[in-house]
């Protein structure tokens, strides 16, 4: 799939490759061609993360458009096809990405956006002709210096990607249907495919959080590295940051404050013991929460064998939950109940949910893990997690409707 023979790699040995595969469902030829040097892939993924994916002055859409117009002018088929698909995967609204790549000047994007892309094209095609006036013109279109800086860097990143792709001879391999299929992302099956997947391709069910997993930006990375090199204070900070979250995870499983409190210390001691082997394939907090899940499960096994965590797959095909109380909640519960009342009610009802729904809802909605992170922590697929979430949320809504909803409905 390229000029060079990549090394025969087992992705499991290379966390970054695993993340790339998790994000796209396959390892694109662009990265596959570089497997002789996984360290170079790491560095590139970091660069892409900071420049393209991380939020800055420019929107992701603007950055993708810059990537497209420059890649098209550089005649990089690989980069154009890959990023046309990525723009669709992200559900970015606007003209067809191919149209932007072909000739952005005839699309209906706003004049300021056109000016930005004109500048990017000029820098890409005639770098020595760029003058101070070009910058002034962009400022007149209300772009700040940060926008301009990011544009320049994006053009540089695009050239980099294009030239790497040329040099390695990477064959285009991005295809939206393949990607969503490999990720196991569902399209609604009882609808004709034609209606749900129009030629615009906007209905591919992949959102930014999936794609951005290519680049796990872990805010704990620095503290983890410092702990690994023996700085104990760094680990103290990790304890401080994540104690609350781990306590909640343990509560979700054990439903017992004493067990959760006892387990808390064990989780961090185990994490410390094994942190040398943590390589960043997932975020540190995901890894830590997984330790907490095991700790909680172990405690449950000791205490009782009755409450199953329901972690096995294949138990998701119960009949759909049917809401019974469908009266409208007339107002906002926050305006009708004190914070303490709401907290008490939520805690009470969460603890009544069956384990597998309770744990899914507490990780996703109380602790705010993303859907993908929650699925990873529970070691289940995203569709299975979504089915648990739907049921758990509806059950909780029903339980709250009988008390919170009643007063709200009577307003």
């Amino acid at each position, binding site marked *: 799939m390229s000029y060079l023979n990549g090394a025969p790699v087992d992705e499991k040995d290379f966390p970054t490759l695993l993340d790339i595969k998790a994000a796209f469902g396959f390892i694109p030829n662009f990265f596959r061609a570089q497997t002789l040097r996984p360290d170079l892939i790491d560095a590139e993924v970091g660069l892409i993360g900071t420049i393209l994916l991380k939020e800055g002055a420019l929107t992701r859409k603007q950055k993708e458009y810059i990537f497209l117009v420059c890649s098209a002018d550089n005649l990089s088929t690989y980069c154009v096809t890959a990023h046309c698909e990525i723009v669709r995967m992200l559900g970015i609204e606007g003209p067809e990405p191919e149209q932007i790549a072909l000739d952005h000047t005839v699309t209906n994007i706003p004049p300021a956006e056109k000016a930005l892309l004109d500048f990017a094209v000029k820098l890409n095609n005639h770098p020595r002709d760029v003058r101070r006036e070009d910058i002034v013109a962009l400022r007149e279109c209300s772009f700040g210096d940060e926008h301009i800086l990011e544009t320049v860097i994006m053009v540089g990143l695009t050239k980099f990607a294009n030239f790497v792709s040329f040099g390695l001879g990477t064959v285009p391999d991005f295809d939206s249907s393949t990607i969503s299929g490999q990720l196991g992302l569902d399209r609604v099956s009882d609808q004709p495919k034609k209606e*749900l997947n129009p030629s615009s391709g*906007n209905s591919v069910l992949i959102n930014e959080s999936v794609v951005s997993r290519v680049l796990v930006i872990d805010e704990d990375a620095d503290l983890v590295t410092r702990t690994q090199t023996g700085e104990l204070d760094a680990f103290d900070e990790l304890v401080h940051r994540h104690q609350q979250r781990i306590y909640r995870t343990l509560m979700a499983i054990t439903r017992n404050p004493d067990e959760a409190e006892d387990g808390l210390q064990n989780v961090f001691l185990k994490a410390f013991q094994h942190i040398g*082997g943590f390589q960043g394939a997932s975020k540190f907090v995901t890894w830590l929460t997984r330790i907490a899940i095991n700790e909680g499960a172990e405690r449950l096994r000791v205490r009782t064998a009755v409450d199953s965590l329901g972690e096995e797959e294949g138990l998701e095909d119960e009949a759909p939950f049917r809401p019974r109380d469908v009266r*409208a*909640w007339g107002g906002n519960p926050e305006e009708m109940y004190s914070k303490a009342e709401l*907290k008490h009610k939520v805690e009470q009802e969460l603890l009544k949910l069956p384990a597998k729904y309770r744990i899914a809802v507490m990780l996703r909605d109380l602790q705010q893990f993303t859907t993908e992170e929650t699925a990873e922590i529970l070691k289940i697929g995203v569709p299975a997690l979504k089915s648990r979430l739907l049921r758990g949320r509806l059950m909780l*809504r029903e339980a709250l409707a009988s008390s919170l909803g009643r007063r709200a409905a009577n307003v």
Partner: protein
Amino acid sequence: MFSCENVLAELSNYVDDELSQELRKQIEAHMRHCSTCRAIYDSTRKTLRIITESGSFELSPDVSSRVASSIRAKIRAKQTGPAGPSGS
């Protein structure tokens, strides 16, 4: 045309904004004329907001600092012994 069952099946994805534009539009078209689905959507959204903002199962500051001190002491005690953070 989307049915109430279709909307209910996608409700969680809709609340999480994890749907394609096409599906969103179909759900929104359905909800414009279905007050039941509208009520279920609205109360689900409020339920999730309450859960997120409830601060449920908060660790008390006392327990938090007690546990943190105990962990501190234990990992420092280990460091004086032969094993530190291992590569296992």
